Protein backbone atom coordinates (compact mmCIF):
# COMPACT_ATOMS: atom_id res chain seq x y z
CA UNK A 1 0.00 0.00 0.00
CA UNK A 2 2.76 2.31 1.00
CA UNK A 3 4.62 1.39 -2.16
CA UNK A 4 1.63 2.27 -4.33
CA UNK A 5 1.42 5.71 -2.79
CA UNK A 6 5.10 6.18 -3.41
CA UNK A 7 4.93 5.18 -7.02
CA UNK A 8 1.83 7.29 -7.58
CA UNK A 9 3.70 10.32 -6.25
CA UNK A 10 6.61 9.48 -8.51
CA UNK A 11 4.30 9.14 -11.46
CA UNK A 12 2.79 12.54 -10.74
CA UNK A 13 6.21 14.15 -10.54
CA UNK A 14 7.17 12.51 -13.78
CA UNK A 15 4.05 13.75 -15.45
CA UNK A 16 4.62 17.36 -14.44
CA UNK A 17 8.15 17.10 -15.81
CA UNK A 18 6.86 15.70 -19.08
CA UNK A 19 4.29 18.45 -19.28
CA UNK A 20 6.79 21.23 -18.77
CA UNK A 21 9.04 19.56 -21.31
CA UNK A 22 6.25 19.49 -23.86
CA UNK A 23 5.40 23.13 -23.16
CA UNK A 24 9.01 24.07 -23.69
CA UNK A 25 9.07 22.10 -26.90
CA UNK A 26 6.05 24.01 -28.15
CA UNK A 27 7.55 27.40 -27.40
CA UNK A 28 10.79 26.19 -28.94
CA UNK A 29 9.01 25.47 -32.22
CA UNK A 30 7.41 28.91 -32.06
CA UNK A 31 10.80 30.49 -31.43
CA UNK A 32 12.35 28.68 -34.40
CA UNK A 33 9.55 29.94 -36.63
CA UNK A 34 10.05 33.48 -35.37
CA UNK A 35 13.76 33.16 -36.03
CA UNK A 36 13.15 32.06 -39.59
CA UNK A 37 10.96 35.13 -40.05
CA UNK A 38 13.67 37.40 -38.64
CA UNK A 39 16.28 35.79 -40.85
CA UNK A 40 14.09 36.42 -43.86
CA UNK A 41 13.63 40.06 -42.91
CA UNK A 42 17.35 40.48 -42.36
CA UNK A 43 18.03 39.04 -45.78
CA UNK A 44 15.48 41.27 -47.46
CA UNK A 45 16.88 44.36 -45.75
CA UNK A 46 20.40 43.43 -46.77
CA UNK A 47 19.27 43.14 -50.38
CA UNK A 48 17.62 46.56 -50.14
CA UNK A 49 20.77 48.09 -48.67
CA UNK A 50 22.89 46.52 -51.42
CA UNK A 51 20.57 48.02 -53.99
CA UNK A 52 20.53 51.43 -52.32
CA UNK A 53 24.31 51.51 -52.17
CA UNK A 54 24.42 51.00 -55.94
CA UNK A 55 22.36 54.14 -56.57
CA UNK A 56 23.73 57.49 -57.61
CA UNK A 57 22.48 60.91 -56.48
CA UNK A 58 20.18 61.27 -59.50
CA UNK A 59 18.17 58.12 -58.69
CA UNK A 60 14.94 58.77 -56.85
CA UNK A 61 13.96 56.67 -53.87
CA UNK A 62 10.41 56.18 -52.64
CA UNK A 63 8.96 54.53 -49.58
CA UNK A 64 5.54 52.96 -49.48
CA UNK A 65 3.34 54.29 -46.68
CA UNK A 66 -0.01 52.59 -46.91
CA UNK A 67 -1.12 53.13 -50.50
CA UNK A 68 1.14 56.11 -51.28
CA UNK A 69 4.74 56.35 -52.37
CA UNK A 70 6.63 59.09 -50.58
CA UNK A 71 9.86 60.43 -51.96
CA UNK A 72 12.85 59.81 -49.70
CA UNK A 73 16.37 61.16 -49.50
CA UNK A 74 18.84 58.48 -50.55
CA UNK A 75 21.07 59.06 -47.53
CA UNK A 76 18.12 58.88 -45.12
CA UNK A 77 16.92 55.63 -46.64
CA UNK A 78 20.37 54.11 -46.37
CA UNK A 79 20.59 55.07 -42.72
CA UNK A 80 17.09 53.78 -42.01
CA UNK A 81 17.74 50.43 -43.61
CA UNK A 82 21.09 50.23 -41.84
CA UNK A 83 19.39 50.85 -38.51
CA UNK A 84 16.77 48.25 -39.28
CA UNK A 85 19.44 45.69 -40.08
CA UNK A 86 21.12 46.50 -36.76
CA UNK A 87 17.86 46.10 -34.89
CA UNK A 88 16.97 42.81 -36.58
CA UNK A 89 20.47 41.45 -35.98
CA UNK A 90 20.09 42.22 -32.28
CA UNK A 91 16.69 40.53 -32.19
CA UNK A 92 18.19 37.53 -33.92
CA UNK A 93 20.98 37.31 -31.35
CA UNK A 94 18.45 37.56 -28.55
CA UNK A 95 16.34 34.78 -29.99
CA UNK A 96 19.44 32.61 -30.41
CA UNK A 97 20.19 33.08 -26.72
CA UNK A 98 16.64 32.27 -25.68
CA UNK A 99 16.68 29.21 -27.89
CA UNK A 100 19.90 27.99 -26.33
CA UNK A 101 18.48 28.47 -22.84
CA UNK A 102 15.34 26.64 -23.83
CA UNK A 103 17.38 23.74 -25.12
CA UNK A 104 19.29 23.59 -21.86
CA UNK A 105 16.04 23.61 -19.88
CA UNK A 106 14.63 20.92 -22.12
CA UNK A 107 17.65 18.75 -21.46
CA UNK A 108 17.19 19.23 -17.71
CA UNK A 109 13.57 18.17 -17.88
CA UNK A 110 14.46 15.20 -20.03
CA UNK A 111 17.05 14.08 -17.52
CA UNK A 112 14.56 14.52 -14.68
CA UNK A 113 12.02 12.40 -16.54
CA UNK A 114 14.60 9.68 -17.11
CA UNK A 115 15.52 9.75 -13.42
CA UNK A 116 11.89 9.46 -12.26
CA UNK A 117 11.31 6.72 -14.78
CA UNK A 118 14.18 4.74 -13.38
CA UNK A 119 13.01 5.24 -9.80
CA UNK A 120 9.55 4.20 -10.81
CA UNK A 121 10.82 1.05 -12.46
CA UNK A 122 12.90 0.20 -9.42
CA UNK A 123 9.86 0.75 -7.20
CA UNK A 124 7.73 -1.42 -9.49
CA UNK A 125 10.32 -4.19 -9.52
CA UNK A 126 10.48 -4.25 -5.71
CA UNK A 127 6.74 -4.81 -5.41
Amino acid sequence: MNMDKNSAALYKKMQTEVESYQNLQKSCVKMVKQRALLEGQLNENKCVLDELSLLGPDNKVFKLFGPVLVKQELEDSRQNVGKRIEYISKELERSTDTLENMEKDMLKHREAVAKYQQQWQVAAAMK
Partner: protein
Amino acid sequence: MAGTSSATAKPEMIDLTKLSPDQLMQIKQDFEQEMGNIQESLSTLHGCKAKYAGSKEALETFQPDWENRQILVPLTSSMYVPGRVKDLNNFVIDIGTGYYIEKDLEGSKDYFKRRVEYVQEQIEKIEKIHLQKTRFLNSVVGVLEMKQAAAVKMMQAQQQQQQSNQSA
Protein backbone atom coordinates in the same frame (compact mmCIF):
# COMPACT_ATOMS: atom_id res chain seq x y z
CA MET B 1 15.62 26.97 -43.62
CA ALA B 2 18.86 26.56 -41.71
CA GLY B 3 17.25 25.86 -38.36
CA THR B 4 18.09 22.16 -38.23
CA SER B 5 21.33 22.11 -40.19
CA SER B 6 23.49 21.93 -37.07
CA ALA B 7 21.53 18.94 -35.80
CA THR B 8 21.91 17.03 -39.04
CA ALA B 9 25.62 17.60 -39.50
CA LYS B 10 26.44 15.19 -36.70
CA PRO B 11 24.81 11.91 -37.80
CA GLU B 12 27.11 11.73 -40.80
CA MET B 13 29.99 11.01 -38.45
CA ILE B 14 28.19 8.05 -36.87
CA ASP B 15 28.54 4.57 -38.27
CA LEU B 16 25.04 3.89 -39.54
CA THR B 17 25.32 0.15 -39.19
CA LYS B 18 25.70 0.54 -35.43
CA LEU B 19 22.34 2.25 -35.02
CA SER B 20 19.19 0.38 -34.10
CA PRO B 21 16.38 0.13 -36.67
CA ASP B 22 14.25 2.44 -34.52
CA GLN B 23 16.93 5.11 -34.55
CA LEU B 24 17.37 4.69 -38.28
CA MET B 25 13.64 5.06 -38.80
CA GLN B 26 13.71 8.23 -36.72
CA ILE B 27 16.58 9.64 -38.78
CA LYS B 28 14.81 8.67 -41.97
CA GLN B 29 11.64 10.44 -40.90
CA ASP B 30 13.51 13.57 -39.81
CA PHE B 31 15.34 13.66 -43.10
CA GLU B 32 12.25 13.13 -45.16
CA GLN B 33 10.62 16.06 -43.42
CA GLU B 34 13.67 18.21 -44.01
CA MET B 35 13.77 17.21 -47.65
CA GLY B 36 10.16 18.30 -47.90
CA ASN B 37 11.10 21.71 -46.49
CA ILE B 38 13.99 22.01 -48.91
CA GLN B 39 11.75 21.04 -51.80
CA GLU B 40 9.30 23.74 -50.72
CA SER B 41 12.01 26.41 -50.55
CA LEU B 42 13.23 25.38 -53.96
CA SER B 43 9.82 25.77 -55.54
CA THR B 44 9.41 29.17 -53.86
CA LEU B 45 12.76 30.23 -55.26
CA HIS B 46 11.83 29.01 -58.73
CA GLY B 47 8.63 31.05 -58.46
CA CYS B 48 10.64 34.15 -57.48
CA LYS B 49 13.02 33.62 -60.35
CA ALA B 50 10.13 33.35 -62.80
CA LYS B 51 8.67 36.62 -61.47
CA TYR B 52 11.94 38.51 -61.85
CA ALA B 53 12.54 36.99 -65.27
CA GLY B 54 8.99 38.00 -66.26
CA SER B 55 9.63 41.62 -65.28
CA LYS B 56 12.89 41.57 -67.21
CA GLU B 57 11.16 40.23 -70.29
CA ALA B 58 8.49 42.89 -70.06
CA LEU B 59 11.21 45.55 -70.00
CA GLU B 60 12.98 44.00 -72.95
CA THR B 61 9.89 44.40 -75.11
CA PHE B 62 10.09 48.17 -74.61
CA GLN B 63 11.30 49.88 -77.77
CA PRO B 64 12.81 53.38 -77.91
CA ASP B 65 10.12 54.52 -80.39
CA TRP B 66 7.30 53.67 -78.03
CA GLU B 67 6.79 57.24 -76.91
CA ASN B 68 3.02 57.93 -76.79
CA ARG B 69 2.27 54.40 -77.84
CA GLN B 70 -1.12 53.22 -76.70
CA ILE B 71 -1.15 50.35 -74.21
CA LEU B 72 -3.67 48.61 -72.00
CA VAL B 73 -3.05 49.13 -68.34
CA PRO B 74 -4.30 46.33 -66.10
CA LEU B 75 -6.52 47.57 -63.27
CA THR B 76 -7.20 44.03 -62.11
CA SER B 77 -6.03 40.78 -63.64
CA SER B 78 -9.09 40.77 -65.90
CA MET B 79 -9.86 44.46 -66.52
CA TYR B 80 -7.82 46.97 -68.49
CA VAL B 81 -8.00 50.66 -69.34
CA PRO B 82 -6.29 52.26 -72.34
CA GLY B 83 -3.26 54.40 -71.61
CA ARG B 84 -0.27 55.98 -73.30
CA VAL B 85 3.41 55.61 -72.54
CA LYS B 86 4.54 59.08 -71.46
CA ASP B 87 7.93 58.42 -70.03
CA LEU B 88 9.98 55.68 -71.65
CA ASN B 89 13.05 55.88 -69.55
CA ASN B 90 11.88 55.85 -65.93
CA PHE B 91 10.72 52.77 -64.11
CA VAL B 92 9.88 52.47 -60.43
CA ILE B 93 11.00 49.17 -58.99
CA ASP B 94 9.95 47.56 -55.72
CA ILE B 95 13.19 46.50 -54.06
CA GLY B 96 11.57 45.14 -50.89
CA THR B 97 10.65 46.29 -47.36
CA GLY B 98 8.49 49.06 -48.83
CA TYR B 99 11.29 50.81 -50.69
CA TYR B 100 10.90 51.71 -54.35
CA ILE B 101 13.58 53.17 -56.61
CA GLU B 102 13.42 54.95 -59.90
CA LYS B 103 15.76 53.71 -62.61
CA ASP B 104 16.17 54.14 -66.35
CA LEU B 105 15.49 51.32 -68.79
CA GLU B 106 19.04 49.92 -68.79
CA GLY B 107 19.35 50.20 -65.02
CA SER B 108 16.04 48.41 -64.53
CA LYS B 109 17.00 45.60 -66.87
CA ASP B 110 20.28 45.32 -65.06
CA TYR B 111 18.45 45.17 -61.72
CA PHE B 112 16.28 42.26 -62.81
CA LYS B 113 19.22 40.52 -64.40
CA ARG B 114 21.10 40.71 -61.12
CA ARG B 115 18.06 39.51 -59.19
CA VAL B 116 17.62 36.49 -61.45
CA GLU B 117 21.31 35.67 -61.03
CA TYR B 118 21.09 36.03 -57.26
CA VAL B 119 18.09 33.74 -57.02
CA GLN B 120 19.78 31.25 -59.34
CA GLU B 121 22.79 31.19 -57.03
CA GLN B 122 20.54 30.45 -54.06
CA ILE B 123 18.80 27.70 -56.02
CA GLU B 124 22.12 26.09 -56.86
CA LYS B 125 23.25 26.26 -53.23
CA ILE B 126 20.08 24.59 -52.03
CA GLU B 127 20.19 22.00 -54.79
CA LYS B 128 23.67 21.02 -53.62
CA ILE B 129 22.40 20.55 -50.06
CA HIS B 130 19.44 18.65 -51.44
CA LEU B 131 21.75 16.27 -53.31
CA GLN B 132 23.87 15.66 -50.21
CA LYS B 133 20.80 14.92 -48.14
CA THR B 134 19.38 12.61 -50.79
CA ARG B 135 22.61 10.61 -50.78
CA PHE B 136 22.58 10.40 -47.01
CA LEU B 137 18.93 9.41 -46.93
CA ASN B 138 19.64 6.68 -49.48
CA SER B 139 22.42 5.26 -47.35
CA VAL B 140 20.15 5.33 -44.30
CA VAL B 141 17.44 3.50 -46.23
CA GLY B 142 20.05 1.02 -47.50
CA VAL B 143 21.27 0.18 -43.99
CA LEU B 144 17.69 -0.04 -42.78
CA GLU B 145 16.78 -2.51 -45.49
CA MET B 146 19.87 -4.55 -44.74
CA LYS B 147 18.91 -4.72 -41.07
CA GLN B 148 15.34 -5.64 -41.89
CA ALA B 149 16.52 -8.44 -44.19
CA ALA B 150 18.88 -9.71 -41.49
CA ALA B 151 16.05 -9.64 -38.93
CA VAL B 152 13.74 -11.62 -41.22
CA LYS B 153 16.48 -14.19 -41.83
CA MET B 154 17.08 -14.55 -38.12
CA MET B 155 13.39 -15.09 -37.47
CA GLN B 156 13.17 -17.71 -40.17
CA ALA B 157 16.21 -19.51 -38.76
CA GLN B 158 14.62 -19.50 -35.31
CA GLN B 159 11.38 -20.90 -36.65
CA GLN B 160 13.20 -23.66 -38.47
CA GLN B 161 15.09 -24.52 -35.36
CA GLN B 162 11.87 -24.66 -33.35
CA GLN B 163 10.29 -26.89 -35.94
CA SER B 164 13.21 -29.23 -36.03
CA ASN B 165 13.20 -29.27 -32.21
CA GLN B 166 9.52 -30.16 -32.20
CA SER B 167 9.90 -32.92 -34.73
CA ALA B 168 12.90 -34.36 -32.92
